[in-house]
């Protein structure tokens, strides 16, 4: 494409813009359709990017308020002397708390609920506020010796300030409703809503007993000059050795930021798919648009315009359209981000203050121009190769694009997509997988479309009636829309039904079997002396005691002969940190249960005299601790060091709604260690469950009760909200798909108008023309949505096998709703666009030709 002419052509870039404008003006409505294809995709990307930026800003600005302090020291056991010494050396904590799960009962209406007790001492929070109703009680509940009860519980049980709540052995007056507080995440608040009481009463509640899972937090302020990172580096290793930890407000906000970043990345990809779908629309529209312009290009070349000039005229048009589309999409996206808090506020531990940032706006404008041009280049190449001979009515089949140029353009598209996907998810592997997935989906759909056309051509039903034959003919004849419509409809259906099926899998994993053998009530923290009485309370109600699981807490002391304190200091160690710091809850039994499968080693049912003790590890713990069968572990069982050896490794299905353990001892070792018990039973309905819970809380206030049905209802609610957010993004894809569809149908309308008019001139009646169109779009809708749903079943099956590791049985909804729904939509759009064929007088069209 080197230009070595000696002649001077002086028409500059200004003329190219002038020509682009002149031509664009006359093709206005067509260009508007191209633009509409990308507007929603850009809006989706910009809204997600903007909201992500807003979250990052909010988290950054509110990091101290989110923690309630500059930094804290936390431990899941009562801090020992050394930890207290460190706390003192840091100038003493300004506030502290202990938090744990427990049952609370409300005498006003004789109800009980699993809650999170937060025993507070000092002026917590040090930053931010306790948002209470009435506001004043945030300051004086400590003095009053009263409780602040989660606002949702107050509403659920119709509680008023002045009512009372019984926590363990003590009854507290309710000072007010707790609307939000630093340190309470939305998710844990859904399962166990918080109740705040003064710390000084905790001991008297009698709730902190053996096995109670608790967390102590000591809150600190730091002066402006304190280097928190340095403090963390210096103090954290000392605390680690004592099973405690130092967290700064920036650590917390970074962790929180990362969590929402992951959600954001996923939503980004969904938005990106909408944009890609739009780009597909651009490619197909430009393809038809340019095809119609090739004659004008030939005239221009005849008049002396160079290839570069004719190419540039249309490139400028497309880029201009992309810019305007990007501008509209960006504006829409900036407005749309105000919608996200409606879906996500429940999961966010703070009130989101929406603000506009520059980066997403620039991204939107860039994407508008870049994606439009990128996807239009291939059809635009047609202008480069068109011969000026065309104006002389000489058909010379030499207008095809060069293979080299086509490969170059396709490679650029792939590389650009990969870079953009990486930009959105910051992970090369996932970006590559995403692009390959998209290419594969598109390739399968395109392959199907081609196959369909080939099959119809090969086995054309010559005996069918005129209208049915014409409609089938439209699927494969020159200038057909089969490929682009099947791609647009297929990708949209694929996305929506994949999301639907994935939600199915997630819900199936949490569903409870309603069998009498399957526990749905779990009693935690049952102390050994009270076990018999608790069990009696269950059996007296004619309920079966399904499990009695003993639990002993312990920690790692050494792994393969290396003390955990040494491993902590070894920066080259591959052992996962959580293994070193975690308080394990282990059990002992003589057999495997349904959710377990032996992978390596031998199961040892009983080991009275074996030393070291052969224990069983779950595969994830073995991997994280870097141990195999035969390696030794020394475990600290509440002060007593016990030498053990990895006897076997198990696979565990953690998704099952039952108690699973990462470490299991054989029988005969831990029976005399300090322990508590988990008992389970099955109750048939919510009312029996409430009655049992009331009795147990009254008799055994330290026992926590989890009603799995309630938990699953909460999880379902959360999944519903998450899927609402995902569906909202998928909606952009669908809507973009519809716009692309309208665009494609309108484009094909220009091509078919003349033929339909000729048919009418020859005597075809309106209903025959409408029937041809209706049947054609019916086929396209059915095939497109059908193949999209089938592809989604395959992809969900892969997800089920490789990601969720669970069987997948597709539900019928996508077949019953999606396929007919999309088909009808396609049909409707197709028929609506054919109205003008019916209403145009044939003579008018025949005289004017098609412009």
């Amino acid at each position, binding site marked *: 494409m080197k230009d070595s002419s000696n002649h001077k*052509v002086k*028409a500059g870039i200004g003329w190219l813009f002038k020509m682009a404008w002149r031509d664009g003006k006359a093709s206005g409505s067509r260009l508007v359709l191209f633009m509409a294809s990308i507007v929603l995709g850009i809006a989706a990307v910009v809204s997600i990017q903007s909201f992500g930026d807003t979250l990052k800003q909010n988290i950054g600005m509110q990091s101290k308020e989110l923690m309630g302090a500059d930094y804290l020291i936390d431990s899941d056991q009562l801090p020992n002397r050394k930890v207290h010494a460190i706390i003192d050396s840091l100038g003493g904590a300004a506030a502290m708390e202990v938090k744990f799960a427990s049952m609370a009962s409300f005498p006003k209406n004789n109800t009980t609920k699993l809650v999170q007790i937060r025993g507070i001492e000092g002026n917590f929070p040090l930053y931010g506020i306790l948002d209470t109703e009435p506001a004043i009680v945030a300051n004086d509940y400590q003095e009053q010796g009263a409780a602040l009860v989660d606002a949702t519980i107050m509403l659920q049980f119709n509680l008023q300030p002045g009512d009372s709540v019984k926590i363990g052995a003590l009854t507290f007056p309710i000072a007010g409703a707790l609307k939000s507080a630093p340190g309470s995440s939305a998710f844990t608040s859904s399962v166990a809503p918080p109740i705040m009481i003064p710390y000084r009463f905790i001991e008297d509640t009698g709730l902190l007993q053996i096995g109670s899972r608790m967390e102590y937090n000591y809150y600190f302020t730091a002066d402006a000059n304190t280097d928190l990172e340095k403090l963390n580096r210096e103090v954290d290793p000392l605390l680690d050795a004592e099973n405690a930890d130092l967290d700064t407000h920036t650590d917390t906000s970074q962790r929180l930021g990362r969590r929402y970043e992951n959600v954001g990345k996923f939503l980004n990809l969904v938005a990106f798919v909408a944009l890609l779908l739009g780009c597909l629309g651009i490619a197909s529209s430009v393809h038809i648009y340019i095809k119609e312009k090739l004659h004008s290009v030939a005239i221009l070349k005849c008049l002396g315009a160079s290839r570069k*000039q004719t190419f540039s005229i249309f490139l400028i048009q497309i880029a201009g359209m992309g810019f305007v589309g990007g501008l509209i999409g960006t504006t829409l996206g900036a407005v749309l981000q105000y919608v996200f808090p409606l879906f996500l506020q429940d999961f966010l531990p703070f009130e989101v203050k929406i603000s506009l940032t520059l980066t997403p706006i620039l991204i939107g404008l860039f994407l508008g121009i870049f994606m439009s041009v990128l996807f239009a280049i291939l059809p635009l190449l047609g202008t480069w190769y068109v*011969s000026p001979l065309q104006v002389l009515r000489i058909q010379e089949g030499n207008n095809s694009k060069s293979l080299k140029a086509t490969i170059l353009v396709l490679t650029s598209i792939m590389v650009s997509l990969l870079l953009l996907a990486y930009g959105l998810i910051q992970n090369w592997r996932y970006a590559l997988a995403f692009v390959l997935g998209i290419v594969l989906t598109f390739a399968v759909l395109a392959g199907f479309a081609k196959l369909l056309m080939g099959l119809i051509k090969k086995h054309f039903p010559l005996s069918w009636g005129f209208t049915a034959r014409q409609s089938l003919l439209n699927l494969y004849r020159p200038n057909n829309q089969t490929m682009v419509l099947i791609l647009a409809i297929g990708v949209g259906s694929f996305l929506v039904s994949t999301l639907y099926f994935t939600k199915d899998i997630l819900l199936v994993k949490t569903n409870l079997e309603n069998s009498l053998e399957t526990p749905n009530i779990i009693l935690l923290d049952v102390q050994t002396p009270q076990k018999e009485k608790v069990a009696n309370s269950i059996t007296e109600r004619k309920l079966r005691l399904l499990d009695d699981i003993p639990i002993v807490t312990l920690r790692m002391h050494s792994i393969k002969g290396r003390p955990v304190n040494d491993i902590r200091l070894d920066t080259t160690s591959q052992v996962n940190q959580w293994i070193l710091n975690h308080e394990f809850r282990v059990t002992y039994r003589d057999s495997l249960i349904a959710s377990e499968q032996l992978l390596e080693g031998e199961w040892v049912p009983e080991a009275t005299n074996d030393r070291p003790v052969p224990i069983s590890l779950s595969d994830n713990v073995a991997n994280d601790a870097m141990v195999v069968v035969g390696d030794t572990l020394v475990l600290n069982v509440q002060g007593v060091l016990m030498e053990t050896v990895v006897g076997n490794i198990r696979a565990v299905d953690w998704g099952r709604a039952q108690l699973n353990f990462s470490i299991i001892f054989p029988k005969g070792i831990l029976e005399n260690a300090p322990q508590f018990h988990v008992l389970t039973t099955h109750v048939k309905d919510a009312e029996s469950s409430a009655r049992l819970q009331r009795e147990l809380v009254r008799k055994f206030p330290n026992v926590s009760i989890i009603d799995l049905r309630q938990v699953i209802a909460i999880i379902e609610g959360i999944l519903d909200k998450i899927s609402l957010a995902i569906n909202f993004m998928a909606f952009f894809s669908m809507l973009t798909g519809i716009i692309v569809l309208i665009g494609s149908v309108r484009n094909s309308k220009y091509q078919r108008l003349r033929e339909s008019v000729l048919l009418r001139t020859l005597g075809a009646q309106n209903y025959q023309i409408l029937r041809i169109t209706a049947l054609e779009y019916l086929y396209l809708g059915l095939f497109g949505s059908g193949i999209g749903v089938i592809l989604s079943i395959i992809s969900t099956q892969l997800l089920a096998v490789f990601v969720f590791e669970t069987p997948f049985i597709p539900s019928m909804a996508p077949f019953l709703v999606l396929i007919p729904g999309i088909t009808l939509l396609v049909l409707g759009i197709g028929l609506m666009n054919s109205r003008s064929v019916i209403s145009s007088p044939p003579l008018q069209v025949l005289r004017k030709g098609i412009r």
Partner: protein
Amino acid sequence: MTNILNVNNLKKTYKNDAGSITVLDDISFEIAEGETFAIVGPSGSGKTTLLGLCAGLDQPDNGTIELCGKELHELNEDERARLRNNKVGFIFQDFQLLPTLTAMENVSVPLELQGAKNARKVAMELLDKVGLSKRYNHYPSQLSGGEQQRVALARAFSNGPSILFADEPTGNLDEETGEKVVQLLFDLNQEAGTTLVIVTHDLDLAQRNQRILRLKGGKIMANERVVKT
């Protein structure tokens, strides 16, 4: 008088599914500057192909063409396009106006390609000469066939060409309109002193030129000077 067009041993073959067809074979002739020259012959004789090759719209398989002192085979596609822009004007049977441009814009395109500052003024003057100054803002679809061809005439002369190629200029017009357009063409040509090459079926129109080249089956049957009576 020097030649503006020298054609030597031209051969052109087109390939299609059925095989290859030789459209032009061993064609040689020359046209002097300022001459008016008609190419006639039955359908399929290769007239239009010859015109396209002479104007540099395509390359021959064999032979050479020298147009305005340039050997066309030595120029690449863009260089040939620039040569056309600077030295060549075109008139087509089906007018070939750009449908998205107004009459005035269509006429000014060749001048704009040259970067001329007065493109609009020259275009308006030419439209005035062809009697369409009042229709300058109309799109081709808003003009009749005769009017469209007059706009095409104005466009053909707008860049001050040295040679004008006309392909069946009256082929799509009725007799009366065709006669008016031809008269206008010869008037404008005389005024500008341009070399004129017309491809036509119309022997009367051919007779109005100084020379006639007769083609049949892709070969030259005759290259004769017209004797004006």
